[in-house]
């Protein structure tokens, strides 16, 4: 067979993701794309743009804003939305905390990760979203490894691993009862390295914090955490200026930086290939709490 009729692995993954996006747009009345400003959701937006061109992305981008953002990620988000002509919905965890009288986690690195679920569920209800598209990947974490691409959640947003629908061939069953919603993960089958290779291949812009830059940091259990208005050093902390980049972009309070000199995409990819530590292991402070942290959060309505 002629070799020109051959898709490499990135093209195959892209085709699968585009297929999923089109199924979402056709099967649901009110889908939304959950956008965090990180590389995975930026890749999602890129794929969505390709899926619906020359039309616009037929659903809004929704940012569940913890208020603990990297300013670079917010600037990037606004510029991207502007360029796409997309609709952006921002709902703030801070408002949910106030309205629902929630208790904020205390401590030096107060993660609002858990509280995000409340804001997300309120937002789903406010807009009547029947489908939320997320950038979760199955290689990230073992609870994610078992989740379907179309993941049905009950009215509390809960994932029930024992009641998942069989997902056969490339046929996606998005039928739900009123009040339920579906979380759809178009890049389920991508790994971290696939995302980076695709970003390079497609020349996708990223927020600057993904590349090496100087930052004031403190060390916490072997991880580097940036000083910011949300994280203040104690007396025993040693504040250092280090050249770092971020491997994931989450909250400033629970995302660790890695020491790096990689200033270009090429250099970042080389570092990722060489690293022997997983993405979540290296950069997420909140996943280490218990071995089943992600499983618990998912069961309670998290992404």
């Amino acid at each position, binding site marked *: *067979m002629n*070799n020109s*009729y*051959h*898709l*490499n*692995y990135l*093209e*195959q*993954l*892209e*085709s699968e993701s*585009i*297929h999923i996006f*089109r*199924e979402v*747009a*056709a099967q649901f009345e009110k889908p939304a794309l959950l956008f965090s400003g990180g590389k995975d959701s930026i890749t999602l937006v890129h794929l969505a*743009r*390709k*899926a*619906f*061109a*020359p*039309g*616009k992305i037929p659903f809004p981008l929704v940012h569940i804003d913890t208020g603990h953002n990297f300013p670079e990620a917010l600037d990037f988000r606004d510029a991207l939305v502007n360029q796409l002509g997309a609709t952006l919905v921002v709902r703030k965890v801070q408002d949910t905390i106030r309205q629902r009288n929630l208790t904020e986690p205390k401590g030096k690195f107060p993660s609002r990760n858990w509280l995000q679920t409340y804001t997300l569920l309120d937002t789903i209800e406010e807009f009547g979203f029947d489908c939320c598209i997320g950038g979760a990947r*199955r*290689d990230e974490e*073992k*609870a994610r*490894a*078992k989740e379907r691409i179309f993941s*049905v959640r009950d009215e509390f947003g809960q994932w029930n*691993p*024992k009641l*998942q*629908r*069989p*997902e*056969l*061939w*490339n*046929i996606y*069953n998005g*039928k*739900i*009862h009123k009040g339920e919603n579906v979380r759809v993960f178009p890049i*389920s*089958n991508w790994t971290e*390295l*696939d995302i980076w290779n695709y970003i390079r291949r497609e020349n996708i812009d990223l927020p600057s914090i993904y590349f090496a830059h100087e930052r004031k940091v403190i060390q916490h259990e072997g991880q580097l955490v940036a000083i910011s208005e949300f994280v203040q050093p104690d007396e025993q902390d040693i504040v250092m200026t280090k050249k770092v980049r971020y491997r994931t972009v989450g909250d400033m309070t629970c995302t660790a930086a890695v020491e790096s000199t990689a200033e270009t995409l090429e250099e970042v990819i080389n570092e990722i290939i060489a*690293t*022997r*530590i*997983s993405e979540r*292991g*290296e950069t997420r402070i909140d996943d280490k709490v218990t*071995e*089943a942290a992600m*499983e618990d959060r998912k069961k309670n309505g998290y992404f």
Partner: protein
Amino acid sequence: MDLLRFITAGSVDDGKSTLIGRLLYDSKNILIDQLEALEKSTRNRSDGSVDLALLTDGLRAEREQGITIDVAYRYFNTPRRKFIIADAPGHVQYTRNMITGASNASLIIILIDARLGVVEQTRRHSIIASLLRIKHVVVAVNKMDLVEFSQDVFNNIVIDYNGVAAQLGLKNITYIPMSALDGDNIVDKSRRISWYTGKPLLEFLEEVQLDEDVNLTDPRFQVQFVIRPQTGELHDYRGYAGKVISGIYKKGDRVTVLPQGIETTIASVESAGKEVEEVFAPQGAVLQLADDIDISRGDSIVKSDNLPQVSNELEVLLCWLDDKPLMTGNKYLLQHNSRLVRAIVKQVEYKIDVNTLQQQPVEGNVKLNEVVKATIKTATPLVYDSYEKLSEYGSAILVDETSNSTVAAVLIK
């Protein structure tokens, strides 16, 4: 670099999890923190070794009960290929889980314990592989260390399994003697199995030919979504977005829209908003047509000189996947890729014994994990090929409208 999706079939006792753990570990796809977590959970093992099987353990509920609930997907890559493993549990609900995992696989690894040889479970897994027409089969004869790496033991298993494969019509079978626990013939060639002249497992997985698995001769395209920007210069734009299921599409091709049966010409082929020369399977595309035809989601656009079947009465194999039994005469929704039609299961002719492949009469309702031959009538005609000819265009699911569950896998005859 291309992509291979495969499924591993076997139970914990066959060393399936150890095999997967070994593949990930020896190909250096396990990272330090994952290994640390692993060592933490195996610290109380007496011999101090790391239990690779734990690498594939998923949820807390599973660890507590020592069982696997569902299909888990694992990823690893070598410089030559990216691999996606569907890791399906071998015991309870094995049919349902295995079909889920196998539906997208182009290769299956069937594990056989060298001490036990071909057992009932081997036959079951092989029957599902043959029903789903998985293109490549690897028979991994594991635990060779426990039979003193005996060539005779291996050869006898090969002879036995060849008998099963002949009966089922399975082709492209490769036999590999191994010990997943010790790493023999997984990534590196085993020195302890010197009589084996073939490739170790990973090398085989890296080299198995996949290009011929894609059908480029029968053009099939189903509309997923109609793109109508209705703005400015794109005011009259109408593009049919979908995935090329098989074949190649070019501008100027004479095509027929089905089930309407209207002929027209492809006016343009687009990908990601840009006009392209041609598109081929499994690419996504947007087709524009020369004539204004009423087309909606689920309609097919095929080449006029190569038509699929169109019918509202289908002979099918049904794999029942729901706890609620099938009631003959019940109405379901049939989803054929993006096409959704109402359907009735009219008649169930016989049941296939998944241990012997023999036809048996059906007594009462069709239950979970049973495979039956049935006739389905659809409210509007379906456009399809047989599963045997073109699996992606000959497969569908049944959805129970009251529970919204996916209740059956449908393989069209």
